[in-house]
């Protein structure tokens, strides 16, 4: 027996305090508590909110939407690029969501420039390919940090904020031009939806290709003015797609475009040259439409980083930022479910 009760040495206690404080500080640093400038998912998501606050229970962006189910009919051609089961010839169930790029779930359709398509394709082995594509031909900015600045400029009370942002960020010009001068259509079924971000497809041989993809509408696009669209009503797009799909499945051809070495794979503001190899890999068919409050897409996060074996993210920084932000949005809105009642009687247009 030794004497275990020596009087506590001040030095020893101070050392213990130091070790614990250092551990706690390292943890706090990792959590970003000492880095107020760090762009967190929470800050990115909060930047979408209008001055009146976010629409509780809804997605923080692309808040207005309608669910659909259908199939992806793979023609087998994609297997050359990726060993993902989804490209093997066959039909795979799809859960999707047509949506508008706005934080306001009640926005009038004619007021929202960006239209989106969320997809979840499931293969029999249980793997999933989730994606969220939009109708813009290019993305407005090159990095998530700049996107955050754009959100602040958009939300600014200063009417010149966007012009100032565009002047400071020349890469914004192609998107700005499309936003101002590109044609509008009167239907989700007439929209071309683009991944914009690049991803890496891994073939069975192990060969890797950096790709982007698009969904090209089978329906012929008919340009409409925003005035004409506004006259058709604030929810014309949802009414239109429900009506079209009730009549017949609506289709899009999925085209995968393969980058050449040296193409700008990390920057979604830069389109690749038009002569790049494009492979038609299959057809998306929307077969049934469901209103969102009780629809199957409501509580699905169309996280673009949920990829099957045979695909992975590239050097494009956006899928990671989107994945982080979508998860934050999902956590917030599912916790607010009571603010977005499941069965609505006209309360949520």
């Amino acid at each position, binding site marked *: 027996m030794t004497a275990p009760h020596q009087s506590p040495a001040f030095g020893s206690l101070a050392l213990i305090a130091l070790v614990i404080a250092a551990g706690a500080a390292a943890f706090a640093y990792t959590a970003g508590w000492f880095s107020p400038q760090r762009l967190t998912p929470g800050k990115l998501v909060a930047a979408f909110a209008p001055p009146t606050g976010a629409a509780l229970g809804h997605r923080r962006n692309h808040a207005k939407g309608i669910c659909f189910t259908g199939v992806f009919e793979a023609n087998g051609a994609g297997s050359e690029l990726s060993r993902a089961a989804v490209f093997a010839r066959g039909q795979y169930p799809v859960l999707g969501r047509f949506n508008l790029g706005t934080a306001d779930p009640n926005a009038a359709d004619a007021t929202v420039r960006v239209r989106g398509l969320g997809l979840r394709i499931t293969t029999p082995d249980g793997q999933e390919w989730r994606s969220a594509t939009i109708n813009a031909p290019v993305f407005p900015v090159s990095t*998530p940090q700049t996107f955050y600045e754009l959100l602040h400029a958009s939300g600014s009370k200063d009417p010149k904020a966007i012009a100032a942002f565009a002047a400071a960020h020349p890469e914004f010009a192609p998107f700005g031009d499309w936003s101002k001068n590109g044609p509008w259509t009167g239907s989700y079924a007439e929209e071309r939806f683009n991944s914009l971000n690049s991803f890496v497809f891994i073939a069975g041989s192990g060969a890797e290709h950096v790709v982007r993809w698009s969904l090209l509408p089978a329906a012929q696009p008919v340009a409409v003015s925003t005035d004409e669209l506004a006259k058709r009503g604030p929810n014309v797009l949802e009414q239109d797609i429900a009506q079209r799909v009730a009549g017949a499945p609506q289709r899009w051809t999925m085209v995968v475009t393969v980058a050449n070495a040296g193409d700008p794979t990390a920057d979604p503001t830069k389109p690749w040259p038009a002569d790049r190899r494009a492979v038609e890999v299959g057809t998306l068919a929307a077969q049934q439409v469901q209103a969102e409050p009780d629809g199957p897409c409501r*509580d699905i*996060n169309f996280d673009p980083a949920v990829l099957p074996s045979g695909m992975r993210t590239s050097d494009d*920084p956006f899928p990671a930022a989107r994945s982080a*932000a979508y998860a934050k949005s999902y956590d917030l809105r599912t916790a607010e479910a009571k603010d977005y009642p499941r069965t609505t009687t006209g309360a949520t247009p």
Partner: protein
Amino acid sequence: MIGGQRRFTPLQRLLHWLMAACIVAMLFIGVGMVSTVLPKYLTLVAIHKPLGIAILALALIRLVVRLRYGAPPLPADLPEPMKLAAVASHYALYALMIAMPLLGWGMLSAAAYPVVLFSGWHLPAVLRQSDSLHTLLWAAHFYLAFAFFALILLHVAAALFHALVRRDGEAMASVAIHDEVEPAKQGRHAI
């Protein structure tokens, strides 16, 4: 418990230090990944899930080993409140080691995310999709992570207190890696 032993078995000591490294890494990865939108977010998430399942598996092995081999007794002269704190904190550590991965797994299931461990390898959903369950499990996973880290700091503080202040030789010796370390007269385990 088997009485009379002064140290944990080699297997228990191995599990202690292996899991210590895994769990501390896990907590830092977790708190780091939810605070960034940089590409490392995906890397950290991709580590977080399989590491969590590895910790769950190790924790279950460790529980069985602990039930089989027991633990050295606490120092006989340890004041009652400290004994109580020691026993309670170890129950809490075991509970968290097992509960945290299950909460994470359940949370992902309730959100209908595929629980991908490696490319092409995923676990089945353990719960049906539910926004209320997801919210509950998310909150538990999040707040218990901070409680877990606090408990680990307390555990380290207690170990250092034994080593430096009480000098009862118990904490460090009981889980020391090297057998040549002089066996403590008494001991119990760390994490």
